């Protein structure tokens, strides 16, 4: 398993991955500095950081995070789709299951790296705007880590579609078809909690209930995120076992 991971890592280093990961913090900075809607809140008792956090997390978690995690999955499979790479990789003494798991782990690592960089961009926005309130570290961590956990099922589905289709556009189209409705879904109290693509927003939205470990209740986390993860991961895993290369 270790050697597959390091092989994947070497391929990744030549895949122009760094600019992709930097896209996260760049878009975070942009959103934080461009949108000044909630200025009405300044002066009230709310911690200044929340003002930026609410507007930044909205766009970042609702659209950017689900879409870019799909691109990561496609990039991870790019080498294999070019000129018979799957054949060469699977001719090695590795099992298909391990290849799939290694790819999945690596994508999740990339998403985590991007989330941490996004945290830095939140901090940078605060510094540029000159916030003096204490940095709400606990809340921010909760939101960063929660957003990461919420992408678990999404990445599993994206890896599945990326293995299936050769082109980048097809998995991206699937991703878009599911991500756009979440703009409406998260507004609904009834359907929002059950829509997997709305979860990154719900997990990152700092306005939620702060008593729990995450901003969403445990049973919702387990059923929607956990269930979605199991469904998509097993689906992709079994598909890859049977895929003709």
């Amino acid at each position, binding site marked *: 398993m270790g050697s597959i991971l390091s092989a994947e890592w070497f391929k990744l280093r030549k895949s122009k991955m760094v600019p992709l990961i930097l896209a996260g913090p760049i878009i975070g900075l*942009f959103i934080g500095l*461009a949108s000044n809607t909630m200025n009405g809140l300044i002066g009230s008792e709310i911690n200044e950081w929340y003002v930026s956090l609410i507007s930044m997390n909205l*766009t970042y978690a609702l659209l*950017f995070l689900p879409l870019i995690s799909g691109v990561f999955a*496609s*990039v991870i499979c790019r080498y294999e789709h070019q000129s018979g790479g799957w054949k060469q990789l699977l001719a090695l003494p590795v099992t298909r299951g391990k290849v799939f798991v290694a790819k999945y782990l690596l994508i999740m690592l990339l998403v985590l790296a991007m989330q941490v960089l996004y945290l830095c961009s939140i901090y940078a926005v605060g510094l540029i705007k000159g916030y003096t309130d204490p940095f709400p570290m606990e809340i921010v961590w909760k939101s960063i880590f929660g957003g990461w956990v919420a992408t678990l099922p999404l990445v599993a589905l994206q890896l599945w579609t990326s293995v299936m289709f050769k082109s980048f556009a097809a998995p991206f189209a699937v991703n*878009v*078809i599911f991500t756009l409705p979440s*703009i409406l879904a998260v507004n609904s109290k009834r359907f929002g909690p059950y829509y997997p693509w709305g979860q990154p927003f719900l997990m990152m939205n700092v306005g939620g209930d702060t008593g729990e470990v995450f901003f969403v209740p445990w049973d919702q986390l387990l059923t929607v995120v956990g269930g979605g993860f199991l469904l998509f991961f097993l689906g992709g895993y079994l598909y890859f076992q049977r895929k003709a290369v």
Partner: protein
Amino acid sequence: MIGKLLTSDFLKIKRKGLWFLTALGPIGVVALQMVNYGVRKDYLLEQSEDDWGYYLLNVHSFTPLAIVLGIAILTSFMASIENETNAWKQLIALPVSKLTVYLSKFTVLAILLFLSSTLLMLVTMAYGVFLDLGDSIPIGEIAKFSYYPYFAALPILALQLWIASVCHNQGIPITVGIFGVIFAYLSYFLPDWMIWKWPSLMNQWDEPIINVMLGIGIGIVLYIIGTIDFARRDVK
């Protein structure tokens, strides 16, 4: 020559899902409003005296996002058709100029998006009539909200086709497309010169026709830059 290239490009996109996505875009945008109005019709009808106008605004809140993402997907598909089998070389080896190859790709995409906008108009109207929003159907407004974003988005189409056809790694145009949709989502906060703001039909003068004019003008400029760059590059 261009006629034959167009025929071959239309043949190439057969059964690749491009026609499906072209139809899905507008139907999806209106389907979201079907859900929206299905769940809380009474609340939404109370929001405004002008039910048709409010309904069109609701539909239009998703149109720019769908157009920006749709353009990114279709252009990338178009380029992958050639990329996947290294067909650029074979295509360019034919007795056709590179400029016409590019023109033909652009034309096919422009036609697909135009059909998409037409379908948007028809579906918007059909669901509006179904909702029974009022007797006088504002056909002019519906057409405006369907076709203006299309013309305003031409620069994005030119830019995305340029990036998609010169980049071998399709991750780059897709990421540019994601940036584009974030810009389109935040278009309210953007300055007027950014092309991703234009499909939202907002500007400081409150005259949507300016976005259409700018879209056609800058679209042509970006198309010329793209086609010259495409023609100068080596085909690998």
